[in-house]
């Protein structure tokens, strides 16, 4: 049964997924070309100098990609379920309680995690050709909160979409916006270095929120 659910999810989100991958590739190509241009114009030493001594961050363009990916992917997966009331069918499948939703959420989170991991690893593979480990570590500590915000955004979108009442949905949106703000407090390279665990903890903390919405949906709560 779980294979069928995953197939259904894939059919539903395929083009959005491909779209996200395309944007991911184009974004990295753009960033690499931009950095390549700087290499040719000012040389590597100058580039290292601005990164090390003037706190410039070369990968700022990555900032909103993960959160946008998380929101778009979440909407593509859950909005059709709600608009076309397909979720009712899913919830009545002969599976243990919440198993179907769990598979759907796991599908989304795993796919996004794979996409983000490949994106980060590709960036690292490129960066390690031209920059030393110190700059790579600083880069990782700067971009990881942005990527985790993509997973958090996805979890919230699932929660908001499946919530049966508009009143609660609005409060959930407010909670999502404020929670996501935690990942964008500072742009300073390496600012989250000592609190990266907190960022990871938040992403795990919000994952079960969707089950409350599902439960309220099943109960048919109207207010």
């Amino acid at each position, binding site marked *: 049964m779980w294979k069928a659910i995953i197939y259904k999810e894939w059919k539903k989100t395929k083009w959005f997924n491909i779209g996200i991958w395309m944007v991911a590739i184009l974004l990295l190509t753009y960033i690499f070309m931009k950095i390549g241009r700087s290499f040719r114009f000012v040389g590597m030493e100058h580039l290292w100098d601005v990164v090390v001594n003037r706190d410039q961050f070369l990968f700022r363009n990555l900032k909103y990609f993960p959160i946008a990916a998380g929101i778009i992917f979440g909407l593509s997966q859950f909005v059709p379920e709600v608009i076309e009331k397909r979720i009712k069918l899913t919830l009545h499948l002969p599976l243990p309680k919440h198993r179907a939703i769990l598979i759907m959420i796991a599908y989304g989170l795993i796919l996004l995690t794979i996409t983000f991991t490949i994106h980060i690893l590709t960036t690292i593979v490129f960066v390690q050709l031209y920059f030393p480990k110190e700059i790579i570590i600083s880069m990782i500590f700067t971009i990881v909160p942005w990527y985790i915000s993509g997973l958090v955004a996805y979890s919230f979108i699932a929660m908001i979409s499946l919530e049966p009442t508009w009143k609660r949905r609005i409060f959930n949106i407010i909670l999502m916006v404020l929670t996501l703000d935690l990942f964008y407090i500072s742009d300073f390279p390496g600012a*989250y270095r000592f609190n990266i665990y907190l960022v990871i903890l938040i992403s795990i903390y919000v994952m079960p929120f969707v089950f409350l919405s599902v439960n309220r949906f099943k109960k048919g709560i109207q207010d």
Partner: protein
Amino acid sequence: MKIINYTIIILSTLILAWVVPMLYHLGVDKASKSNFIYYSSIEKDFCSVSYDKAKNKNIRKNINTDKEYSKTEFDSILPLYFHRQLSSEGKLPDSINGVFISPKLLRQKQLFFRNKPTNKNRPHIQLFTLFESMSGRVRLELPGDFFRLDNNIEFINPETNTVKKEKSEMFMNAFIKKGFTFPAKGVFGNPSVLKSYDEGYFIIDNKDQIFHLKMVNGTPFFRNTNMPIGIKPQFISVVEPNDKSFYAFVFDCDNKVYIISTTNYNFTEVPCPEYDINRDNLSIMANMLYWNISVTSTKGKTVFALDATNKVVVDSITIKSKSVKNNLTKYIFPFTIKLESYNTKYVKPSIKPGNYYAFMLNFFFMILYVGVNKFRKKEIKIISIIWVVITGIFGLIPSIVFNKA
């Protein structure tokens, strides 16, 4: 499902404890009244420039006598600060207090130094630019490599991203020869090509000794400063002043400030008002005759005037800060969460408890919670009552909004 609902209430409460005080401060905070304080070599007293809102102009006055000065008069009682202006008007005296002065000498002895907490508390990529100190060129040039200092010293060529083995070995030998204990606790320099000369880096080793590293004609210049026993350095600011009289300021764990002299690396304590490098701002305005040491903290501003020759305090003044911040937060909120601070570039959560009144107010919010739920004919939960009593308004809002699981 109740547990998930409670986790949502907890998250919402904590986020409100962060967002609401932040919005409050965005709405009501005003800039604190700043005033520049100078020590006048003519009046032998502290003078200040501050903006008077009522008169809509800068007021220049002697702080102790309250005598006000015009702009021109102010220049003339502070010739060591405004010597360029006086010089252009032909009003610069030949001597002050019997000491001969000239524009060249004044420029040479002038120093402006500021240290704020974020200079220390910030993420820094542990790579360093070591300039050639005796290149024979007027302008400093990038050296073509960066060094790292972990358990050894390595120079990396940025064009190839590879280690320069020969140079690394040459410098490593100098480190071993001088008894440097790896790994380094801190590497401090001033890697800017805009400065007039280079004194390299001051490095704290694992035994809290300070070493001086420079590159002279492509070879290492590495010395132990033989710092006096009892100083435990936590931060160094390399200054490279025009008169080359000293190398750097050393801030130790007892909040004392020292200068490392260019004569045999002598350490001299600089008398300084109570200063916490992690919270306060330090500014030093030095000239031929006096050093103005100013520490600005939440309590106010304290300024010491030191004799430039022997660094003895000749005068001091403290101006307590008037609380321009409307500090209602501690009366309303039982606690507030801060994730950013003026004292650090790191994102760092900190919780500040409110005072007794805020906790009293929590009982009012608890009654409000009961009243609202009774009115709405909703379930009144004991656990929510306890949560509102502890967290006040921050817990009240989510407890009402997310009442039903």
